[in-house]
């Protein structure tokens, strides 16, 4: 343990993908700061037209501006690539709409710092908190969770949660290969399982959305659900595209 005490502190980055979140992004950044000042914060502006980027920059975040909208998967991956090339040791993905509770940062980071996992998923349904999606959303979330659990042979309760923490091992996988579009977290979890990353779920509390509503319409969510099911199915037969370094 004394050895661990002497190693330099891990460089931490919070990756905040944002699409038209000017109303909430400033507070999200302040809350991350308040929760853990050691965090560098990078906001990925996925083609906002409401000045989200300017607000984020004014709040002191680093800013990555995508030239056009890529969708959540492509936006988050930009952050992963940034974290990897700039030498960060751990990255936390946290939504720009204020849904994720910064006070839970420590909970989600712990397994990474302890070296117990490569990918930590903050689960809304693993015991704490009162957040519950309703109706079809919840049915879909349950369905994805059970399919993914089956595929990667590890029980997970919440594969749709985008509140996640990654070490360099999972960063290097996701920087090179990450699903695009919505519901990317489901595919990404299967991908991580396929590359034998150590996945750990921790219970977190989550807030109800502060402003706005889900950006998914019903036909779109059906389309993305079908797309994810196809991707997940095919991924079982796909040869790994890259080779990950063995864990140190």
């Amino acid at each position, binding site marked *: 343990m004394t050895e661990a005490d002497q190693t330099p502190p891990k460089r931490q980055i919070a990756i905040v993908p944002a699409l038209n979140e000017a109303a909430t992004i400033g507070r999200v950044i302040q809350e991350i700061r308040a929760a853990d000042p050691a965090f560098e914060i990078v906001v*990925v502006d996925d083609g906002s037209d409401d000045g989200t980027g300017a607000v984020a920059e004014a709040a002191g975040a*680093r*800013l*990555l*501006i*995508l*030239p*056009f909208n*890529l969708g959540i998967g*492509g936006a988050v*991956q*930009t952050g992963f*690539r*940034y974290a990897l*090339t*700039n*030498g960060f040791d751990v990255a936390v993905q946290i939504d720009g709409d204020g849904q994720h509770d910064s006070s839970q940062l420590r909970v989600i980071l712990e397994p990474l710092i302890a070296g117990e996992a490569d990918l930590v998923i903050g689960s809304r349904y693993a015991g704490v908190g009162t957040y519950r999606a309703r109706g079809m959303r919840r049915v879909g979330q349950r369905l994805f969770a059970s399919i993914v659990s089956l595929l990667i042979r590890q029980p997970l309760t919440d594969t749709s949660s985008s509140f996640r923490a990654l070490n360099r091992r999972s960063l290097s996988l996701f920087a090179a290969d990450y699903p*695009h579009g919505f519901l990317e977290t489901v595919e990404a979890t299967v991908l991580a399982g396929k590359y034998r990353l150590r996945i750990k779920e921790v219970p977190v509390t989550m807030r109800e959305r502060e402003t706005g509503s889900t950006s998914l319409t019903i036909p779109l969510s059906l389309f993305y659900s079908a797309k994810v099911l196809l991707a997940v199915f095919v991924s079982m037969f796909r040869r790994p595209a890259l080779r990950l370094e063995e864990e140190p």
Partner: protein
Amino acid sequence: MIPFRVSVVAAIAAIIFLLVIFELIRSRKLQERYALLWLITGGVILLLSVWRDALRLVAEQIGIAYPPSALFVVGFLFILAVLLHYSTVISELAERNVMLAQDIALLEERLRMQEAHPAEERAQGA
């Protein structure tokens, strides 16, 4: 069993089709690599409409009573192949598009940081 008129019309249509493709390549509106499948499609249809015995044989072998229908089948299959090929091309382009957009965002950030803090260039890199 193959009406002569069908053969003539099919052959003329195939020739016009091939000429249009050739013109598109000549005027650089169509790259050769994407024209190839179309040229083969047109070529096969032309061949089968001129070489009537071959079309009859093909129809017989796959159990089509009316040989000109076989022409449709062959044409249909080739068009499917072309469309599928295009879907793979689009997928690849979309993939590269995402990567380029991300590259722009990353490079632009680096440039902004360097312009803001010229002295700290080395700290930014790594």
